[in-house]
């Protein structure tokens, strides 16, 4: 099963198994992972599902589209080179993803 390892700003790690096809955001929210708010439910409107992707995982992920790129300029914690909106990251069968959640999303 695909697994996402969420590390929060204080260093606590939560390992969550998800379903292929679901987004990283959905996987987090459904299981109550703190640190992911996702007000808009994945319609790329709110920028409150911001994550920092561990560098060696980046190549497994789809390229960023313009709208995600622009939305990332409005995150509560400033974006970094490894920033993504987790609603745009789909789980695939063998995915093992390590992300860090920012201190705040709003």
């Amino acid at each position: 099963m695909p697994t996402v390892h969420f590390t929060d700003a204080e260093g606590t790690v939560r390992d969550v198994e998800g379903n292929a096809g679901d987004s990283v955001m959905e996987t987090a929210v459904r299981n109550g992972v703190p640190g992911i708010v996702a007000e808009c439910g994945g319609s790329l409107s709110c920028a409150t599902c911001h994550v920092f992707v561990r560098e060696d995982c980046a190549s497994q992920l789809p390229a960023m589209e313009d709208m995600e790129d622009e939305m990332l300029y409005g995150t509560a914690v400033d974006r970094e080179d490894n920033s993504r909106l987790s609603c745009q990251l789909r789980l695939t069968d063998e995915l093992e993803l390590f992300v860090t959640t920012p201190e705040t999303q709003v």
Partner: protein
Amino acid sequence: MGTQAVEQETATATVPTRTGLLIIGASQSGVQLAVSLRALGFDEHITLLGDEDHRPYQRPALSKEFLQGTVESESLIFRSNDYWAGHNVDLVKGEYIVRIDKEADGSGVAHASSGREFPFKRLALTVGARARKLEIDGSGLDGVLYLRNADDALALKARVGDATDVVVIGGGFIGLEAASSLQKMGKNVTVLEFGPRLVGRAVGEETAEYFLQAHRSRGLDIRLNTSAARFTADDGGTRVAAVELQDGTVLPAQIVLIGIGVIPNTQLADQLGLAVDNGVVVDRFALASDGTTVAVGDVANMPNPVPGSEPGERIRLESVNNAIEHAKVAAYSLTGRREEYAGIPWFWSNQADLKLQIAGLCNGYDQTVVRNDRERGKFSVLYYRQGRIIAADCVNAPLDFMAVKNALAKGLNIPADAAADPGIQLKTITTDS
């Protein structure tokens, strides 16, 4: 006094424990209230009760991704069953509360139409709003539909395959979102708007006009100042076949979708004797007039939370963002803390390839600045009151939206005279004066 004491004893005898919080309404705000309470360490039992036979789900996609079939119903579910079980939240589906008996201390018993009783120590009303009905000839025909909840969306989806022509009544967000979705699904869609422009008071003139032109150029037939006179049936007499307009025009329609606004569900608040005025009247801490019940989200009429708004001004907001932020205020209230509403109200509406994001509330604006970048398909309207920015509507312009939302949150301004050039990034001209 003696009688009351006897009654209380009787009540205590039949309902031995009135513990925990009963949240009526398994809605966005009900879910957020439960989640926020657990995050704050609230350790009493929580019952989250809804009248639908679905686990709590997100509504916004019903008129868009869910209708178009690009997301499954499972994706709309807020939290897994494991989450609720692990957080001591009892999820109750399919129970409709018809009456509540409540004591002065805030405890009581809610009675469902099934006969089940739900005792509580504290009560939260997150009952939302219901679709406003259009009552004209033929409004009871099969195929005349609304779009408020999951069952509505399922009913609509079930009929879409057989339909060629759809008439949408109401040019607000729901109507336009659904119309765009149905058009994308190959239907011949006509939108009837009673008023002189789209989206009523939620946006200003310029934005309404932009959407009108944008939708028309995408092939949507929008008729302003137009109302339906009656719906007529097919030969069988039960299914809708056409909409007859006031001017006698007849539009074929195998589906009529009505989206003409909502009415807050204040029936229980009325029965409880709470102050009600376009929703349940609450204070800054989401407390209703009895001082113990909280009312949250679409159903609540609250003091306008936007910094700088007129003292005494009240507002009822219908949005996901408000449901979440207001629920947080209520969660603090229920745990004995007094925290005011945080953040700037914001809204979104996705219609075809038009992605609208609204920051702030444009009520009372005296000046607008339009930023129209035709080449890149971006369009924003900034709203000002006495020279200070109060809101913005942004279409496919997330940078503008984010800049305005951040400026409002920090009490900063974006001077109007510099904002009109769409080539200038708003965040670079944001100032503290």
